[in-house]
């Protein structure tokens, strides 16, 4: 009984994780500029691994494998913001103005003074 429940829960987590990964990918194509696309990439970077690793940990149970899976999640959650930030900083430094809703561009004046 419990086993079936865990299998179903883990399958649900894997499926929703996969769905979020696809949504993130669709967002990368749909959004207008590099900054907004980074946000869409963030969906694939955060909730998709959370749900997929969570589902896999449920499959493996109290096993050394779970420790390894959680380590993957930990490293992923620490490194992806750094990569996102580096991309955004590089885009700012290259002088790419973010698009805003009403077409005017927000000031990116502080990007160069570090």
């Amino acid at each position, binding site marked *: 009984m419990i086993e079936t429940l865990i299998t179903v829960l883990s399958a649900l987590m894997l499926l929703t994780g996969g769905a979020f990964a696809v949504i993130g990918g669709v967002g990368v194509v749909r959004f207008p500029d590099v*900054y907004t696309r980074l*946000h869409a990439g963030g969906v694939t970077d955060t909730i998709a691994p959370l749900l997929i690793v969570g589902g896999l940990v449920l499959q493996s149970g109290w096993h050394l494998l779970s420790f390894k899976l959680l380590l993957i999640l930990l490293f992923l959650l620490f490194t992806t913001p750094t990569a996102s930030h580096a991309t955004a*900083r590089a885009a700012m430094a290259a002088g790419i103005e973010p698009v805003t809703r009403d077409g005017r561009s927000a000031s990116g004046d502080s990007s160069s003074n*570090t």
Partner: protein
Amino acid sequence: MRYYFTLAVTLVILWLGLSGVYKPLLFALGAASVALVVWLTERMEVLGAEHDPATLSWRLLVYWGWLVGQVILSNIAVARAVLDPRRIQPTLIQVPVRQQTNMGRVTYANSITLTPGTVTTWLASNGDRAQVHALLADAVEGLETDAMGQRVQWLEGKPR
């Protein structure tokens, strides 16, 4: 000395967790690897209070739990925006950074970036403000209430 001890303990736990094969030869190889890494960090003089896992408190676990909740909420908001791109209102705002330590400031900036819908594009060199690109109007409001910043200050050890 304390830093080298905690580094060695962390590395031993990591090695034991990743290995899974517990034979004398592999124990010896693991011990040699740990010793080599500790010796190299000593030679490179890179070890300091910032890298000491023993300075982390139970507050970190509470903060991570809260952060995962925030990440899930903002993921749902961004996923809805992907399915209906007319929702997006990209804005660039400046937010004050009130953390006292460099570790706290980086934790705050990294937490903002980790949460989908907001990316820190710039952190002032003196660390008192940051520039954030936000995708949705809700995210801007969330940053202005400073809920996350206050939690990072609490994580630094400030009483709430």
